[in-house]
């Protein structure tokens, strides 16, 4: 009898000459839950995509499912081999009901007459088998996020998976509210009891300890460890993921002499609940957390690009209306969104026009804008941040990501704001531009502004921030004062939800 349900050997993958996977091995024993961990860019998703038949690996790679070799590069052969994938996009049709969605997986081949009542009875039995009390007649749109995930998983398991295949879950809890995570865990435990083999990709360490039997860690495209879950602890896993030793740091005492500039008081809205914080003059404040924790929307809610449900924001004592970037800019707030290409800039416009648009120089609205004055100003900013190419009329889409972001930063600084809010300020930015941006942000802070950076990049937070708020379930749970090591920040944000697991 084969006990290796999935055996992958020497899987390598290159993109544009860059190594994404380097001779990765992976073994899944029959009936185990195997967690796959790694930072972004470690190769996790690439490996999953190879298994799914989306990517063709380098020659020499070999994958067997229950002893049978898998043909690469075809989603169909992966499916026939018994691999079932649950991605973040569950593939459910919101407007159809639970029964119809469950049936989409199976075949309609047997009869030409579809009996709705019979199907519902079958669906109800199917749900009971996994201990779910969901009305099979409910439209999927009315289900909770966890229920939707469970429907997708049950559909995959019932659709010919049995004990012969492997269920691959790609970050199934990333978009779940923390209070629903345990429902999914219960289902996975039930599947495990039935002997289903599961490959579980996640960022959340607490879940790994709840559900997994063994864990494999990838870093920079290489497998760095495969361990039984009893043989490692959370700190050990963080060290493996980051490739760094944990060092203990002393928390420095808080400085109370700072003057508050931006005060957010019990702000609620998209994923955020009663979030309060204060940005002080001269300070760089970091905000971080896991996806869905609310760290990614708090700055948008403060600025007004997202509509807040409740809460107050004041800058230098002056209140700012909800949902109006226009008024926020006028009161001295500048914001740069994480999605630069879609929200942060006008890609088809020149550097000059992108720089000046939030604050055009005019006395009357019908006044002529002086292109000469704008160009002169643009050239100053281009020189100051070393933007390349160094032409004011260069079209923004022709600039590299780093240079585009420099333009966005220059645009913010040009408004001379009292508060700079930045979501993921260096995503897709090269190292050189990164250090230029950091030094501009430090200068802005030492000139008296408050700089608030919301980021998932712990290295960035460690390098830049005087203080870091770690967010979970919509509000800050920890405040780390003083310089931190990236590993400490990562450990605290990854470990927050032990009680949820």
């Amino acid at each position, binding site marked *: 009898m084969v006990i290796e349900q999935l055996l992958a050997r020497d899987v390598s993958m290159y993109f544009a000459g860059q190594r994404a996977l380097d001779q990765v091995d992976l073994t899944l024993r029959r009936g185990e839950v195997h967690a796959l961990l790694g930072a972004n860019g470690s190769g996790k998703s690439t490996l999953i995509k190879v298994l799914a038949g989306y990517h063709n690996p380098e020659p020499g790679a070999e994958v067997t499912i229950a002893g049978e070799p898998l043909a690469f590069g075809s989603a169909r052969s992966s499916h026939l081999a018994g691999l079932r994938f649950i991605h973040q996009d569950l593939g459910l049709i919101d407007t159809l009901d639970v029964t119809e969605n469950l049936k989409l997986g199976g075949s309609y081949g047997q009869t030409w007459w579809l009996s709705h009542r019979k199907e519902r009875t079958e669906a109800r039995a199917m749900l009971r088998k996994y201990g779910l009390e969901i009305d099979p007649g409910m439209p999927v749109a009315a289900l909770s996020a966890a229920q939707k995930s469970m429907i997708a998983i049950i559909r995959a398991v019932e659709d010919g998976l049995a004990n012969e295949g492997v269920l691959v879950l790609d970050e199934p809890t990333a978009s779940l509210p923390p209070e629903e995570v345990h429902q999914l865990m219960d289902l996975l435990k039930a599947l495990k009891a039935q002997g289903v083999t599961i490959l579980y990709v996640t960022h959340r360490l607490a879940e790994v300890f709840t559900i997994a039997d063994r864990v494999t860690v990838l870093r920079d495209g290489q497998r760095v460890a495969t361990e039984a879950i009893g043989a490692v602890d959370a700190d050990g896993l963080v060290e493996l993921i980051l490739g760094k030793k944990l060092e203990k740091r002393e928390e420095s005492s808080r400085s109370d002499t700072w003057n508050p500039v931006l005060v957010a008081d019990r702000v609620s809205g998209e994923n955020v609940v009663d979030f309060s914080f204060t940005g002080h003059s001269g300070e760089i404040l970091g905000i971080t957390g896991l996806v869905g924790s609310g760290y990614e929307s708090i700055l948008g809610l403060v600025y007004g690009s997202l509509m807040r449900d409740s809460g107050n924001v004041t800058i230098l004592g002056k209140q700012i209306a909800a949902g109006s970037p226009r008024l926020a800019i006028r009161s001295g707030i500048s914001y740069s969104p994480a999605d630069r290409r*879609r929200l942060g800039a006008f890609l088809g416009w020149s550097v000059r026009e992108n720089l000046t648009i939030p604050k055009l120089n*005019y006395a009357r609205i019908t006044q002529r804008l002086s292109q000469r004055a704008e160009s002169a100003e643009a050239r100053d900013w281009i020189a100051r941040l070393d933007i390349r190419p160094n032409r004011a009329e260069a079209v923004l889409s022709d600039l590299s990501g780093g240079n585009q972001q420099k333009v966005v930063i220059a645009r913010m600084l040009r408004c001379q704001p009292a508060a700079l809010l930045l979501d993921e300020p260096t995503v897709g930015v090269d190292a050189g531009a990164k250090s230029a941006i950091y030094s501009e942000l430090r200068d802005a802070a030492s000139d008296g502004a408050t700089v608030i950076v919301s980021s998932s990049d712990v290295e960035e937070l460690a390098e830049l921030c005087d203080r870091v708020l770690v967010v979970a379930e919509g509000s800050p749970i920890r405040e780390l004062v003083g310089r931190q090591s990236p590993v400490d920040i990562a450990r605290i944000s990854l470990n927050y939800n032990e009680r949820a697991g």
Partner: protein
Amino acid sequence: MRSGAKPTSLTANLGRLRLGRYSGIFLIVALVVIFGSWIPQTFLTATTVQAIAQNEAITIIVSLSLMAALAAGVFDLSIGQNVGLGAVVCISLVSTYHWNPVAACVATILMCGAIGGLNALLIVVVGIDSFIATLGVGSALLAAAEFLTNDQFVGPTPASFQIFAEWQPLGIPVLIIYALVLALAAWYVLEHTPVGRRLYATGANADAARLAGIATKRYVVGALILTGLGVGVAAVLLSAEIGSVSAQVGNSYLLAPFAACFLAATQIKPGRYNVGGLLVALFLLGIGVKGLSLVTGAVWIPDLFNGVALILAVGLAVILQRRTQRRSKRQAISAEIGGSNPME
């Protein structure tokens, strides 16, 4: 704003065609040379020049009006029927109800502006896609014009009303002078004032514009009302020019302005609906249509020429878009392995 998505990508791609900023001007010269040597005795005459200028004047004004809406990122498909209803109302007021011509003109322009306001209400407040909302409004406007005319021609207007469209100082049709003055004003506002910059920003990327502190909804509403008012001016001048109209007169003021505006986004300042490009596009279309009509004498020439020009420009843009999408997909895949953060 959802309604902004379509025209945005369209302009960007029209700009990316890189047909050459001045290719339209070269084409105009080529057309003049071709028709000039083919039918010199009919084409190279003052009458032909005057006729082209006169024909294009109203279309220029309608196209300039349309440009306001397009620059803000919304379609206005009701322009043609708005011209038609405006002309019907204006002529009825003057000839049937014997209104003072000035009062009739003001009333017409305000009515057309109000229709722009109705479009704005449906698009910005109710939230209907601009394409659908203005298509529906346009159909309703045609019905209103047919109801008012009872399927008869209205007019003719008294000579005193027609005089201000027929005047030809130094042999130049006064209509083209009006049109060029309006074009100059539109060029100044769009390209040299804060209003124009923000209007373009709204159309280029409404979400980014809002985050940059622009009151995008106000600009869209303003642009649609301005489109209505401009169309009203065109309706008044059309009434004065031809004196008697049927309800269907608006049909010829939909396709040509759209073709001209889309072509305009490939000329002079590619990627942006610009006034210089618009004039090049309109004279290119006007000369082509006039020359072919003189050669063949066929009535279907204008519709065919405008349609083919529109399909060529937009079709090339779509093909280009597909190619860029494929490229960005490839880039996305290779970008996936960049970056390094442990807890996304």
